[in-house]
């Protein structure tokens, strides 16, 4: 029988099929079907059961790491100033640049500086002339004041003398009138209680005269007091007149202008160039070419000798893991590391929920403006049960883990996932501390090739 015969083999459909042959075919078909079902079920079994990774709960502390980006700031900064209002010609440094003492920082415009020197000189001259005028006025004023005081004193003395003489005259007139009235009463029997109609007219005239002299005396006395008060007030007014300090003020003004001019002249002689007073880094720059200098510092220089401090922001939650006095690590550019100490942690007023952390660095570490990463690790208390975060699930507000349990079924022992509700005590990005019906012998499902639910069949991967 060759291949061609096999290939061209043709069935004889005219021959009848016996029962035995038919039964044999059915049996063969049934066996093939059963074999296919068995293979299918085995394949389905291996395909459907979730392969899971498991881990036993451990007794451990949970490390909390705080990593924050921040910048180094100088612990101390020294301001560099220039006269205000002068045009800046050029700026030789930029923010963050390191400079040495004597390095050129910026240059003021020479023409503008010369113009300002000239203006200040003229202003000084004007102020000096004003001072001279004021001084002359002041001298003249003093003489006038002295003369006024002298005249006032003379007026006072004269007024007092006049009133004294007037009073003396009035007293003498009263004394004479009283004596005349007494003499008349002594010579004549006069009953003073009688009505004027019954009294002697001479007596009445003497009595009225006396009374008039008495009133004149009292008026003179009163006039004397009034004259005294008036004269004293004049003297007091003279003493209380505003002192004229304009000359002194102008003198100070001249002095200030002289100082300002001398500074400008010194600047002009130096060519308008401002140099660094110390070695350090420029941390702030407020001058720019083409703009005028302000009254505030033109730039700030941070000297390395005072060291640097690191600042960053942390959330309120992270404050739990960082305290003043804690030792922290700082990673500086170029894979350099430095140890630091937390100086302070202060809530940010303008940023709710955040706090500013300041860390001091040892001298000689870092540069101003340098970025750095703070790293601090705090270990929690020892927890009885910790599981990987990947084992933790949440439904609503409840946390749970899935543990592998062996159960008896009609097909034998099978492993399935059992849900165990737990309370979350603490956690970091990898580990969670929980409390619940867990023992250290439980195998907790931490992952798998598919999402595993409660009561799902599982097959733990060999560890």
């Amino acid at each position, binding site marked *: 029988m060759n291949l061609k015969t096999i*290939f061209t083999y043709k069935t004889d459909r005219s021959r009848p099929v016996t029962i035995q042959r038919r039964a044999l075919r059915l049996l063969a078909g049934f066996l093939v079907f059963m074999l296919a079902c068995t293979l299918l079920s085995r394949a389905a079994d291996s395909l*459907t059961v*979730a392969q899971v990774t498991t881990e036993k709960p451990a007794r451990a502390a949970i490390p909390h790491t705080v990593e924050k980006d921040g910048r180094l700031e100088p612990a101390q900064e020294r301001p560099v100033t220039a006269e205000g209002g002068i045009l800046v010609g050029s700026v030789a440094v930029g923010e963050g640049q390191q400079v040495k003492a004597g390095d050129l920082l910026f240059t003021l415009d020479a023409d503008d500086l010369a113009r300002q020197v000239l203006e200040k000189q003229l202003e000084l001259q004007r102020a000096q002339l004003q001072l001279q005028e004021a001084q002359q006025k002041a001298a003249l004023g003093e003489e006038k004041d002295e003369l006024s005081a002298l005249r006032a004193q003379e007026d006072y003395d004269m007024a007092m003398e006049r009133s004294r003489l007037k009073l003396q005259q009035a007293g003498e007139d009263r004394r004479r009138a009283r004596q005349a009235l007494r003499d008349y009463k002594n010579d004549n029997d006069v009953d003073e209680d009688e009505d004027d109609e019954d009294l002697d007219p001479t007596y009445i005239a003497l009595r009225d005269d006396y009374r008039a002299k008495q009133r004149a005396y009292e008026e003179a006395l009163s006039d004397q007091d009034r004259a005294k008060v008036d004269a004293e007030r004049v003297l007091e007014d003279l003493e209380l007149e505003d002192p004229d300090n304009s000359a002194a003020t102008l003198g100070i003004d001249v002095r200030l202008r002289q100082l300002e001019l001398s500074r400008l002249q010194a600047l002009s002689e130096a060519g308008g160039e401002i140099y660094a007073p110390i070695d350090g880094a420029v941390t702030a720059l407020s001058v720019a070419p083409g703009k005028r200098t302000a009254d505030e510092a033109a730039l700030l220089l941070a000297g390395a000798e005072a060291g640097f401090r690191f600042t960053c*922001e942390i959330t309120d939650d992270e404050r739990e893991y960082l305290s003043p006095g804690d030792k922290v690590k700082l990673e500086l550019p170029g894979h350099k590391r430095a140890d630091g100490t937390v100086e302070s942690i202060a809530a940010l007023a303008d940023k709710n929920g955040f706090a500013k952390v300041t860390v001091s660095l040892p001298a000689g570490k870092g540069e101003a403006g340098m970025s750095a990463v703070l790293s601090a690790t705090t270990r929690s208390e020892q927890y009885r049960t910790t599981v990987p*975060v*990947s084992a933790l699930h949440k439904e609503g507000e409840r946390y749970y883990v899935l543990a592998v349990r062996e159960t008896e079924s009609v097909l034998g022992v099978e492993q399935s996932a059992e849900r165990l509700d737990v309370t979350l005590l603490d956690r970091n990005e990898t580990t969670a501390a929980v409390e619940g019906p867990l023992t250290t012998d439980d195998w907790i499902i931490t992952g798998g090739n598919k999402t595993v639910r409660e009561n799902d*069949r599982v097959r733990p991967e060999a560890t």
Partner: protein
Amino acid sequence: MTTALRRLEGPLALLLALALWAGACLFAGAAAPLGERAALQIGGAPAGVPAAREMAAAEARTEHPLAFTLWRQEDGQTVESPALGRERTVSVLMLWGESALLLPDARPSLAPAAGNGCLIDRTTALSLFGDARAEGQKVRWNGRDYTVRGVFDAPEATLAVEADPASEVLFDRVTLDLSGEENPRGRAEEFAMRHGLPGERIVQYGGLAALARFFCLLPALAAACSLAVRFFGRARARRDWPVQQALLWIAAVAAAAAVLWLAGVRPAVPQDLIPTRWSDFSFWETLFTERRAEWTDYLWMKKERPDVLLLTALLKAAACSLAALLLAARPALRRPAAGPRAFAFLLAACLCGSFAGVALVGGGELLARDLPMLWLTAPLWLAACRAAEKIPD
């Protein structure tokens, strides 16, 4: 003239069908990277830049860190070209992380250190600069100038920038890169748990990308089915010759399998769709309920730019694929080739169609990825059809 047109109908239909198939492959390819992502919606407390840094640091400390990008979309933003003074309203994607996770076709990818770099879509580039090659140009948004690093295709005006570290932007989405993950859903949930975001809505794009891939493979499936039908038809006619019939069955299966294999069909069922017990009918109920809720949510939620990109790619892939099938189903292509010359003509049309498709829609990247599918599947299918026709009844 009519005869010549009738002769050309088949090759032309084949040419067009292949070009459309190439288009379907391109669009499915564009959807594929997005299918490996999941978006986590931060509903409770949106995260700012410091929180994003914290998340990155915490993720880096884990054994298997996931790549992720936090982002936020601001609609109705006006951008302008400082040089030309032109304006356009766009949606701005503010990112913290690799932009490639959201915009895989935009090159180069932006990173948090991108500074003033930005990506814009082609139509925005044309509106602002009059030229789609806008790399290096300046775009002004919110008073800040950004340099265009790349231009990408998007159905709507889009500007993507890395968020200013000093800004107080609050991100409300996290896109996770789950490529290569055995259990993407589990990993996304683990990520959410790790960063204190459990219970937040997770949108997985794997289903949509798989649908786009299905449309890309649909012509190949149709080709395999048509081949199998032809061979089985021949086998049925040879039932009196059992050896020949068996060989034809084997040939039918082999030809269909070869076409599918060359087309890149690798059947796989997501593990999440397989119950752990076949008898567990509650699994199907739970699965159906969960999926229905997820898809209903997704259907009604606001579609952000990455969603729009994925859905557009899916729709384009579906349209191209179905159009290719309609063209391939024309009677002119179902008829057997009249002779060797006609068959050679068809083969030439097949190669031209593949080339045209590659040249029109993809270029080198598509050529490298779907080379077997486009260059070999169709000729193989034609050759197998020709072989089936040659088998005597």
